[in-house]
């Protein structure tokens, strides 16, 4: 069976499952639409959280980031998992106890202020919308590469599927499709990893294969270090960036993860407070399955790529792959423009090497005139991996379905967070407080439909800065939402003025720092300083600033709160209530 037909069948089958679930899990009340009636089993919620959290970026881009950055990419692995410890211990159980439908609703109640609630809505919508653009792009790319369908068609099909189950089922429909999507994506991610680990190390567990010996008796990581250094790249396991920036980026991603509203909302769906704790543990188990496999995928893909091109000793005349003999996957990816070769020294062979200065002299002595792999997009590592390793067609088809599942599940979670913020926090609380449940349910379906259309539009016309705004999403969540949520639970003395000033200080400082280097509202021309380590304050990159913004938020909030009146008695009572499960 041809690869394309196989891919249609596998992707089509997964879509049929999602639709079937949508029809079974329709929402009949706002409680079901916003929080799935608070009746989701904690382990299943953990699985749904895994799919909700792991986006097209986790599935497609992360292993590639690791493959090309080695040890330095650990910040993403730790940042995007360590946040769950904060979520489980600092936020999820208490917010579940509060029992409201949305994150802004908690902020509005705790700080007895609609202004605070509105600031939270703005942060939520900005963070979620920027995030959703990436998912829409992921769906389009997966379709265009694997089904050879135009990008737009892929996007429309993806939107139609989300439309059916998110508008009909709300959180209830999304939860059960996310569980199915988790199964698809984890299967699609681990199967090729197991195959490749077996091929390279004989160990079927990729997490162990990464630390195992290869057929020639050397350890895989040692071998990779040697190959890379021999070709003028930095050693895989060595640190390249600054320690302070790595630590701050890890911390920013951790507190950003804990503060992202679409993740927090998942913990509103379990029946009890202790279920929220338990569920956070399971969520991280399901996430860790992929996140501990990714380093193996990254290292092995890099090794395979290097060995494909550098077939023998560096510098020997027969040591490099001849362009005429390049494998099929190489040609396929050249067509997409994500892989580009330029024969700089016209010898018909491919020379792929790093920028190391010491090696440059050696390369010149071999008659090499520069690195000829002018583009190796890191996103292709996961998608091309099964082809590079020569795995059967059904595995490749599975990877396509997995990438689409990862993008769809995250998009749906984000869209729900946006839709509930609009219908519950804006319409119901500000404009039409007397809406009955039926009308609000209708309003929430309309907001969901609207959010899908906006996200689709942005996916079709992605703003040029789409990639950079991811830093913004985490920066916002880390510097504005996480601190006010945490202080709302852990400080009885924190009051309205403190929270609002804190949020604005965190938000303002983070935005300012990002805009200085990336341009005001991401218009490159308006950047005030070049975006490179020499100009960064203490070497802190704009993406790592969220943790510093959070610090400002805490500091300002405490100073303001302690110099103004304490919150009213009933609010202090409410905080005491939050702290006990019953």
């Amino acid at each position, binding site marked *: 069976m041809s690869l394309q037909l196989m891919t249609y069948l596998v992707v089509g089958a997964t879509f049929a499952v999602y639709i079937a679930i949508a029809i079974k899990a329709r929402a009949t009340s706002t409680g079901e639409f916003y929080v799935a009636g608070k009746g989701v089993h904690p382990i299943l919620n953990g699985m749904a959280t895994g799919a909700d959290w792991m986006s097209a970026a986790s599935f497609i881009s992360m292993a590639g980031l*690791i493959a090309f950055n080695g*040890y330095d990419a*650990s910040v993403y*692995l*730790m940042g995007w*998992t*360590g946040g*769950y*410890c*904060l979520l*489980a*211990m*600092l936020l999820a159980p208490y917010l579940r106890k509060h029992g409201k439908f949305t994150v802004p609703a908690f902020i509005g109640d705790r700080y007895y202020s609609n202004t605070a609630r509105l600031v939270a809505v703005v942060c939520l919508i900005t963070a979620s919308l920027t995030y959703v653009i990436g998912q829409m792009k992921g769906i389009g790319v997966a379709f265009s590469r694997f089904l050879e369908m135009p990008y737009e068609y892929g996007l429309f099909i993806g939107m139609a599927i989300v439309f059916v189950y998110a508008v009909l089922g709300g959180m209830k429909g999304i939860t059960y499709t996310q569980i199915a999507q988790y199964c698809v994506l984890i299967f699609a991610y681990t199967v090729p990893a197991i195959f490749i680990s077996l091929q390279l190390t004989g160990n079927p567990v990729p*997490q162990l294969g*990464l*630390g*195992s*010996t290869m057929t020639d008796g050397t*350890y*895989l*990581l*040692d071998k990779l270090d040697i190959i890379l250094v021999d070709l003028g790249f930095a050693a895989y*396991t060595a*640190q390249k960036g600054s*320690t302070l920036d*790595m*630590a701050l980026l*890890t*911390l920013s991603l*951790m507190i950003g993860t804990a503060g992202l509203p679409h993740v927090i909302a998942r913990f509103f769906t379990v029946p*009890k*407070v*202790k279920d929220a*704790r*338990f569920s*956070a*543990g399971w969520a*991280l*188990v399901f996430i*860790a399955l992929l*996140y*501990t496999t990714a*380093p193996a995928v990254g290292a092995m893909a890099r090794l395979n790529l290097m060995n494909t091109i550098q077939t023998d000793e560096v510098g020997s005349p027969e040591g490099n792959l001849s362009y005429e003999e390049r494998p099929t996957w190489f040609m396929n990816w050249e067509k997409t423009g994500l892989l580009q070769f330029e024969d700089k020294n016209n010898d018909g062979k491919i020379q792929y090497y790093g920028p190391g200065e010491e090696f440059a002299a050696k390369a010149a002595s071999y008659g090499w005139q520069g690195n000829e792999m002018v583009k190796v997009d890191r996103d292709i590592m996961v998608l091309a991996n099964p082809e590079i390793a020569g795995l059967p067609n059904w595995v490749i088809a599975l990877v396509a379905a997995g990438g689409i599942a990862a993008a769809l599940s995250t998009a749906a979670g984000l869209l729900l967070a946006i839709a509930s913020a609009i219908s519950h926090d804006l319409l119901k609380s500000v404009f039409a407080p007397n809406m009955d449940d039926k009308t609000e349910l209708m309003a929430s379906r309309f907001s969901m439909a609207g959010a899908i259309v906006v996200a689709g539009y942005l996916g079709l016309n992605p703003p040029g800065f789409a990639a950079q705004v991811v830093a913004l999403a985490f920066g916002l969540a880390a510097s504005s939402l996480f601190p006010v949520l945490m202080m709302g639970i852990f400080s009885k003395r924190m009051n309205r003025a403190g929270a609002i000033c804190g949020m604005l200080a965190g938000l303002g400082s983070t935005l300012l720092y990002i805009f200085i280097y990336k341009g005001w509202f991401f218009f490159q021309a308006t950047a005030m300083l070049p975006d490179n380590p020499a100009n960064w304050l203490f070497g802190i990159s704009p993406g790592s600033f969220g943790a510093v913004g959070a610090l400002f938020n805490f500091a300002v909030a405490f100073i303001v709160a302690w110099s103004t009146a304490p919150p009213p008695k009933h609010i202090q009572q409410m905080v*005491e209530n939050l*702290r*006990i*499960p*019953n």
Partner: protein
Amino acid sequence: MKKNLSQYWKKNLLIMICLLAVWAIVSFGCSIFFVEQLNAIMIGGFPLGFWFAQQGSIYIFVALIFIYFFLMEKVDKDFDVDD
């Protein structure tokens, strides 16, 4: 009753602080600040610091949440506040 609840909260904070200390030590300590020193130790084919950064810290994060769950379940029962 009032005193009981404040004791319950103190116990919760104590458990949380201990677990988050481990969280910080494995992620920021072992994986970032002391990675070079630990990389001198090899566990199979893994330099130890690199292993913490890309594998070990994640396993420990998972363990921490479950330890928190089980400890809190016991504390909830002791103070009779479980739901």
